[in-house]
Structure formats: C-alpha cells, structure tokens
C-alpha cells in the first residue's frame, strides 16, 4: 500500500468527517464563549459583531461574586458527586445481577426501572414534595440526592448490564473456582474490567444531576441550597434575558463537566474490558 493513498484514505474517512462533526458541535459553544466576553449591549446589537470589540471578563466576575454562583457551584458539586457515587455503585450491582443471573422478577425489575422514566418529572413534583416533607427532607440537598439517584439509576443500570454482559462469564467462574466471594468478584474483578462502561455511565449520571433544573427549583426553598441550573435562571428574567451573564454562568457550569470527562475519557480504551480469558 502506498503512503499517499493511506493518507488520502484517512483524510476522507477520518479527518474530514471528524472535522465536520466537531464544527457542528463547537460553533454554538464558541459563540457562547464569545458572547460571555461581550457586554449586554453588544449582544443585542446583533451577530454582526461576531467578536467582542473589547473582550471583558466582567461578566464572569459579576456572576461568580454578585450572583452567588460560588455557593450554587459548591452545592451542585456536593449533590452531583454524592449522587453519582450512589448511582454507580447501584448500577454495578444491578447490572451484574441482570447480566449474570436468571431470577424470577428479572423482567419485572427492568420494567420497574423503566417506569421511573415514563413521565416528565414535572408531574411528580407535588406528591414528591409531600413525601419528602413527611420525612423532613424538604429543602435539603438530600432530597435532591435521593431523587437524582432514583431517576438516574435505571439508565445507568441498563448501561452497566450491557457492558458487564460483554465480559466473559468465564472470568467469574475462574475466580469462583479460586474461592473468591461474589462480592469480591463483582467489585474487585468484574468492575475493573467494566471501567470503560463505568466511565460512560458515571459521566452521564453526573451530567444528569449537574444539569437538572425542575426538581432543584421546586424542592429547595432556600437560596443557600440552590444548584447551578437554578442559579443560571436568575439571568432569565420576566422582562429580559441577560445573555452575556447567562453565557458566562453557563461556561462556568460547563467547566467541571468537561474537566471530569476529559479526565475519565482516557479509560475509554479498548482491551480493558476483555482479553483476560485464557481458553
């Protein structure tokens, strides 16, 4: 095979389509970034001014300090991270159960999981509020953690089931013959092999919690417990939208999510989930 042909092939089957998708994905984000560096007046003057005439970080400073964004940020981190830990643990356990066992009620369990997704969250709010109130959990971050875990667990479980199923059963059996307990098998043997899947699952779960709005807005009645999405809503007023502030706030909100994913995406590498079976 000739080198130039190789290169051309790669160009058309990899680099070109990749660039197209990246542009599609990034142009709106780039615009958000540029908007966050403009003044409000500039934003309204139209896209004709694509670039800010005098870029300013003022929006960021204002949003972080005056907008109490630092508080919302910390709340979101606490709620999201705690939820993700619970969600991941439960999804590994459930995924393993669904993948390795046949048991009565297995299908029913999957259906029950999916039932949580069949209605928009907004219709659940009144009874949910009353449930949490009865347990004195209303207006605490814990109500959100419980709700998010319940809402994210189903999808995470199904994902993990798929990933765990692709890990050969022989690995479990070999370990069992070596005398390992189920718990060790699940958490010390299978889970490490399912890391790519766990990474994707945790990333989605984190985003689901990080960006959730309606429950955080309704179940929390103290400014000090508001999360980032609710904080962003302050920029969208009854009479106008502070686009520049909204953009700045959103970029701030985006940073942890992207950093987290940038860190964990290195585990989306082939071969980690297989190959340790000697026939």
């Amino acid at each position: 095979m000739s080198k130039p042909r190789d290169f051309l092939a790669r160009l058309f089957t990899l680099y070109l389509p990749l660039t197209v998708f990246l542009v599609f994905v990034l142009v709106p984000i780039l615009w958000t970034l540029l908007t966050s560096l403009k003044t409000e007046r500039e934003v309204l003057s139209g896209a004709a001014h694509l670039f800010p005439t005098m870029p300013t970080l003022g929006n960021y400073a204002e949003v972080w300090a005056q907008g109490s964004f630092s508080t919302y940020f910390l709340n979101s981190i606490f709620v999201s991270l705690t939820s993700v830990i619970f969600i991941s643990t439960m999804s590994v356990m459930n995924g393993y159960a669904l993948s390795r066992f046949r048991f009565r009620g297995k299908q029913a369990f999957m259906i029950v999981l999916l039932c949580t997704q069949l209605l928009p969250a907004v219709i659940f709010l009144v009874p949910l509020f009353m449930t949490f109130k009865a347990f004195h959990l209303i207006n605490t971050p814990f109500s959100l953690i419980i709700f998010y875990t319940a809402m994210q667990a189903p999808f995470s479980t199904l994902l993990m089931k798929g990933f765990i199923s692709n890990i050969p059963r022989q690995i479990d059996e070999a370990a069992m013959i070596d005398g390992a307990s189920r718990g060790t098998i699940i958490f010390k043997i299978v889970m490490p092999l399912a890391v790519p899947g766990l990474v994707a699952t945790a990333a989605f779960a984190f985003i689901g919690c990080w960006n959730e709005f309606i429950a955080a807005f309704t179940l929390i009645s103290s400014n000090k417990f508001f999360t980032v999405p609710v904080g962003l809503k302050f920029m969208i007023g009854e009479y106008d939208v502070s686009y520049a502030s909204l953009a700045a706030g959103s970029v701030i909100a985006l940073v942890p999510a992207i950093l987290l994913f940038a860190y964990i995406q290195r585990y989306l590498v082939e071969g980690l989930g297989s190959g340790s079976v000697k026939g």
Partner: protein
Amino acid sequence: MADIAPAPELVGGGVRLRRKRKFGWYPYLLIAPTVLLIAFVMAAPLVSVFDLGLQDYSLTHVADRSYVGLRNIKDILSKDEVFWTTVPTTIKWVILEVGLQLVFGLIVALLLNRKFPGRGIARSLMFVPWAVSGVLTTMLWLLIFNQHIGLLNEVLRALGLSKAPTAWIANPKTVFGSVAFAELWRGIPFFAITLLAALQTIPPEINESCAVDGCGPIKRLFYITLPFLKEAIVFSVLMRAIWEFNNVDLIFTMTNGGPVYLTTTLPIYMMQTAIINGNYGYGSALAAIIFTVLFVLTVVYLGLNKFGKAVDE
C-alpha cells in the same frame, strides 16, 4: 453458593450438561437497594397521577373538585382535537430524533475510536453539547435562530445564501425542523459516548483475526462491531426514545408548543394543561395515557429484543 452450573468444558468434554439454574437470594440482595429507593420516590407520584386522572380537579374552580371516573379519558379521546394533533407530532419527533441521533452518534463513535493525535481533546469536545446546561441550550438556540440578531441568518447572509432573514422559529414551515435541529445537536453526543464505550468491550483479537482473514471495514462493521454493540444499541435507543418523548424543556422554551400547536407533543400538552393552566384532573389523565402508552411500548420492545439477553445469558 454456586448458582450457576459450571461451564461445560470443566465437566467432561463433549457432554452437554443440563444447566440447572437455581435462583438463590443473591440477585435479590443486589437489586434490593434500588427497588426500595424507587418505591420510596415513585410510589406516591404514580398513584397520584392515576388518582387525579379520575377527578375533575381544576384550580380555576376548586370548589367543584369531585371524582368523575373515566370521564376525562373519554373526553380526551373523543372530544379533544388538540390531543389528536399531538399524536403524529410526537411520533414524528421521537422517530426523527432517535433515528438521526443514533446514525450520527454511531458514526462519531466509530470515528472517535480510531487512533489519531488529539483524540482525547476531540472526545472531550464532542461531549460538550450533552454537558451544557439545558437552561443555556434553549436560550442559545433561540438566539442562533433569531430572525434579526441570530447567528444562522448572519452566516447565511455572509455566504450569500439568503436574501431575506428567515424567521426560523416562527415560520410554520421551518419551526419543527429548527427545534429538531437544536435537539439533534444536544442528543448526538449521547449515542456517541455510549457506543464509544461499548466499542471498547470488543476484544481486539477478534478484529485482528478478522483482518487476517481478509475482511474489509464494511464486513467488520456488520459482522463484528454491530453484533457486539447490539445490547448497548437496544438499551440506549429505548432510553433515548423515552426521553425524547418526554422532552419538554427545549420545545417549551423555544416555541411553547407553537405556532398553532405545530411543535406541541403530548407531554407538552399535558404540561400546559396540568401545570400552566392548573387543570390537574384533565392533565393527570393525559399523563396516565402517556404512561400507559409508553409502558406498553416498552414491554413490547423489550419482549421483542428478549430483554437484551446477552449471547450466553
């Protein structure tokens, strides 16, 4: 406690062992926390949806609250024209979004699976639309599609492709496509990342031995890659379809279901009725219909896919 029979090769070659699967208590232990949590969170809401659906309960005439049995359901199915317009809109929305997101997501996943410099950065960037807050996404796309100060019209004008600025979100001809496009932007990363992770579980030896046998990339895609991805695709399509069905935020903020109900899906209609107009009884009946329809579809879908049974389950 051995709850699965040992693999055949360990018990004498060639003998097909009757695989007796005793279900022990272990799986129940594993799923118990989740079941309890879901029961705690969901029980009251589900019951209340069906209970309220049987009532005539509207905040504009609270004093007349009473049980009316299936009257709400009857009214919805026989008298409500808006309901019947939302049905095709919703179907169109779900099929279009899930279909396109799956196809493009798969392509992106395959691309991001290849080795190239800067791959880590590319993957992180591809994640961004999913990671961005919904609050921003809707405002962002509203601004992009804005007839006067929006990015899209500006770009089209600069490229000389349009003479007059289009009112993307207002024009009845373009509104559905515009909202669909915004959602597409947000949804592709979902499939891209999920399928990328699933791709990692394909043993590299299989691909290598296939290459040795001389099969090209297309054969490899259909005979190796897709079968391995089957379970991930089955479940992610199901989840995405359910989520798109129930997606109210984007549509509601961009168009409020309008103009003239062109972008009103069934959940949007339910939300307007129950939450905005305070007609909890009627709105809950709509919710009950949504729930039932999705429930039936889910059970059928899972049944057809054998509940995503893996190859050796």
